[in-house]
């Protein structure tokens, strides 16, 4: 983070130091961002990074829906990731406001507002801090419609949280908690891979009749830049994207990991002459079993990769379903390359992540099985 703010004035005389620091920045990401080839919607586009796209989506939501509220810690001045810049000035402190530092309060409050028909868009500052709100999300938000016989619901609830590795986040600024929530019927969960998906998915969540959780990979806030449609648009929840078609191995990931996999495809082609298919799951709950199984039945080999730890990670759910539905088609066991069963470490991050070399190696094993 601090490296972003290199004091170029200070280092003006020392171009060698400047070059070293710049190189460090480039080496810092374990992925190379690949923008979407196509826009999902025709019409004018504008170049935006992911936090700008999210800001744009929130603006659209507030513009189009008088009942919409955006709140959380520090959202008033623009948010620690700048996702809410300019919104309080535009829509007023009645609709865009700071809350006290209390995640269980933020989500509980959001549920109540949603009960009364307000579109409640709550921000949790880091997904690592969503756990005080776990009870409200799992026991209350997810179950409100079911337990009341449909009399009450909090469909107008959307919770946003930055997630995932960022290079130096360590235990409490890097987590990917999707698996905990995937286990909760009643919630919907999505993970965007870039600005276009972020805008479309966030608007979809806001307008979805069920409570939604959107986990935004923070490493993509600045690094992901795309030509994003200017129009208001939604993207489907529950639908996976086949980003690249291939014949021999299916690679499945979500969020930042999708970009790691897109790089691995080229390495696999160069090193093993293998043709790989890449699927961005997009939606964790509900997830697109049909697209995944269709692909696996074709390629017969599959690798699932995610940053979250191995045991009980969402890859386990995908793997279990694949072996149920595609058993006789498989030529090799379902492979998972994931974070290890440790908390997310600081200086050891390069050894922890499911990087392109671990993924490449797993592909080699799949092909050689």
């Amino acid at each position, binding site marked *: 983070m601090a490296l972003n703010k290199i004091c170029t004035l200070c280092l003006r005389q020392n171009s060698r130091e400047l070059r070293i620091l710049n190189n460090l920045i480039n080496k810092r990401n374990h992925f190379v961002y690949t923008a979407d080839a196509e826009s999902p919607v025709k019409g004018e586009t504008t170049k935006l990074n992911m936090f700008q796209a999210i800001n744009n989506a929130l603006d659209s939501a507030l513009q189009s829906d008088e009942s919409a509220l955006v709140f959380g810690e520090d959202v008033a001045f623009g948010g620690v990731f700048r996702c809410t810049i300019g919104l309080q000035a535009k829509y007023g402190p009645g609709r865009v406001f700071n809350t*006290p530092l209390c995640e269980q309060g933020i989500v509980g409050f959001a549920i*109540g507002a949603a009960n009364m028909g*307000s579109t409640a868009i709550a921000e949790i500052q880091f997904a690592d801090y969503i756990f005080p709100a776990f009870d409200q999300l799992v*026991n209350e938000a997810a179950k*409100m*419609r079911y337990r*009341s*016989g*449909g009399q009450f619901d909090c469909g107008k609830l959307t919770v946003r949280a930055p997630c995932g590795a960022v290079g130096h986040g360590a235990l409490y600024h890097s987590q990917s908690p999707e698996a905990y929530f995937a286990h909760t019927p009643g919630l919907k969960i999505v993970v965007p891979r870039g600005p276009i998906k972020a805008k479309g998915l966030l608007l979809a969540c806001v307008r979805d*009749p069920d409570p939604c959780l959107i986990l935004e990979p923070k490493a993509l806030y600045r690094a992901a830049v795309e030509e994003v449609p200017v129009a208001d648009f939604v993207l489907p929840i529950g639908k996976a994207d086949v980003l690249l078609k291939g014949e021999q191995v299916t690679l499945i990931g979500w969020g930042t990991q999708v970009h790691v996999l897109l790089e691995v495809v080229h390495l696999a082609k160069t090193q093993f002459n293998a043709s790989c298919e890449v699927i961005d799951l997009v939606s964790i709950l509900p997830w697109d079993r049909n697209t995944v199984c269709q692909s696996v039945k074709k390629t017969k080999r599959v690798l699932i990769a995610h940053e979250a730890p191995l045991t009980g990670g969402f890859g386990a759910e995908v793997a279990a379903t694949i072996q149920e539905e595609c058993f006789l088609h498989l030529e090799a066991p379902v492979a998972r390359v994931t974070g290890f069963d440790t908390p997310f470490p600081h200086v050891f991050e390069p050894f922890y992540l499911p990087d392109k070399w671990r993924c490449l190696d797993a592909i080699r094993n799949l092909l050689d099985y």
Partner: protein
Amino acid sequence: MATNKCLHLLRGRFRDQLRFCRHLTTQGPLFPGAQTTWTSDLTFVTASTYTPIPVYRVMDRKGAVIDATHEPPLPDTTLLKMYTDMRLLNTMDKILYESQRQGRISFYMTNFGEEAMHIGSAAALTAADVVYGQYREAGVLMWRGFTLQEFVDQCYGNRDDKGKGKQMPIHYGSKELNFVTISSPLGTQMPQAVGAAYALKGSGRVVICYYGDGAASEGDAHAAFNFAATLECPVILFCRNNGYAISTPVREQYRGDGIAARGPAYGVHTLRADGNDVLAMYNATKLAREYCVKEQKPVVIEAMGYRVGHHSTSDDSTAYRSQEEVDQWTSSDNPTVKFKTYLTNKGLWNEEKEKEFIKKARQDVMTAFVAGEKKPKPEWTECFEDVYKYMPEHIKQQMNQMKSHVEKYKEHYPVDEFA
């Protein structure tokens, strides 16, 4: 020198420098965290520094009005509805509690001792006000018009249960009556009520949120108080302090001056009133409501009372308190008895009316009970509905798998009890 600089800064653009300048001249503390004064006296502030907040009451323990100017000018019909609803609640509780002991419903919670809290507060609200409850507020629902049949149907989870058989007994909810469906986790309703109130700002409606002395220990309670204050929400945070959280007495729940003392600490206007005095409950809630509507800010009410019954049918409170203690409360400070005295003194009630009413109440409860028991449960596939607004593919598949299974193994499933 300093004055010249100040005058220059007063031109307006450099507010921080101006504050620094004020620093040089103001004697008091300027910390952003508190608006207060200095002291050179190093003394603890303790639980006894402030005198305990007194308990507001209209009637004494025997039902005599202490200060007539506080007697609410309610029409006779309202006073009678208040009393008869309290007694109907008692009657329903007795019968449904018994029915659980007989194995007919799976679970029940009575409301003995808290009738005045429910009825008094409910009577001061309008039908449009929204209620978030904990689990011991059946009287509020009853006041609003939830029928005996609706109570019984929910306890049986039959096909007429508004909750569609999804939850344990007493987890009532009614969209029509603005009573949000009860959930078992304690205190979760509190920040929700605050959010609901925020959404209703300016509508003229208020939200009332009931919670117990035990639930007030949950983090959600703290969140609710703080959010209600900082976001200025028209919500009444109504604590039923009945002395126990299952077996845990208040001494093991908190050490401060109850829940009322917490209100001002969060910046919230607070009232403490006698939960056994239906007129005090009415007055307090009425005042709170007026404040909420006028100021669009919250109020904490702490209703002091005593839980006469067991926590639930899963509890035998003789394990942790003496029968003497319970009898003492029932005989010397009984909300229904004291209100009956009040009404009798006004010439609005008598023993004959009492006998007649209780007889009819029993009959009505039994009629609803017998009918409710006979009704089938909802179609068993209902258990797959309402997870989401529209049933997704994966749940549909699971439902179909189970349908095939039940077809084959019908005799092992209680299909006859379901519609």
